[in-house]
């Protein structure tokens, strides 16, 4: 039981590290991030919205993962976000767009698109494992509470 709990905490910690690092590195080099967003193959009028929405969403996920009551929500959110990033990486690799843009975001920008995809899929798998463990824990808590009633 304790082992499983530590494993769940470690999954949450890894996701927190990913999203907190990603959002902070965007804010710390905001000008470059704006340029990189403009370089992505979607309309530039979305850039003013996306440059704030993406890092703020990442911080919201971090907060949801830290607080026990909202952790399941945070795990679902990280699963959705990482799945969307993976789909985006797949569309880039399949040359769905007219050109292949640079991959961006701190040290992560050193990865190729293929490595990016593997990296994202690892965190998708981690989020799914976290969801399963957190749901199991949630149901066990409900059963334990009801058995005392």
């Amino acid at each position, binding site marked *: 039981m304790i082992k499983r*709990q*530590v494993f769940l905490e470690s999954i949450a910690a890894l996701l927190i590290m990913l999203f907190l690092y990603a959002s*902070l*590195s965007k804010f710390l*080099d905001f000008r470059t991030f704006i340029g990189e967003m403009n370089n992505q*193959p979607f309309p530039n009028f979305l850039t003013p919205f996306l440059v704030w929405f993406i890092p703020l969403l990442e911080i919201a996920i971090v907060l949801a993962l830290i607080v026990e009551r909202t952790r399941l929500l945070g795990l679902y959110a990280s699963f959705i976000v990482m799945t969307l990033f993976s789909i985006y990486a797949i569309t880039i690799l399949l040359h769905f767009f007219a050109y292949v843009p640079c991959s961006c975001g701190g*040290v992560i920008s050193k990865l190729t698109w293929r490595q990016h995809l593997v990296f994202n899929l690892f965190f998708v798998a981690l989020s799914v494992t976290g969801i399963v463990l957190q749901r199991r824990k949630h149901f066990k808590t409900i059963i334990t509470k009801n058995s005392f009633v």
Partner: protein
Amino acid sequence: MKKIKWMIMTLAILLSIGGAFATRPHYDCTFNTQYYWNGSAYLQAGTFGVNFICQDSPNSCTYTIVSGQFVQCRMGTYSPASGGIQIKK
């Protein structure tokens, strides 16, 4: 258990904050005027993502002037952009 939880969380938060600051670029050539090589001369490229884009490749996309010399800045292949959507039809 709560103690272990907060130890793991604190470590994760400190590592990510420290990592973000440690990997923050100290000198960024992209803040300087960007030039591209058109085959015979270096020309001003304009604003990244607005006037030009760099497609993923190991080539030199743009250059900047350092001590009177043109040195590579952005990696990739230079291509002019109109700032609009560029989805393949």
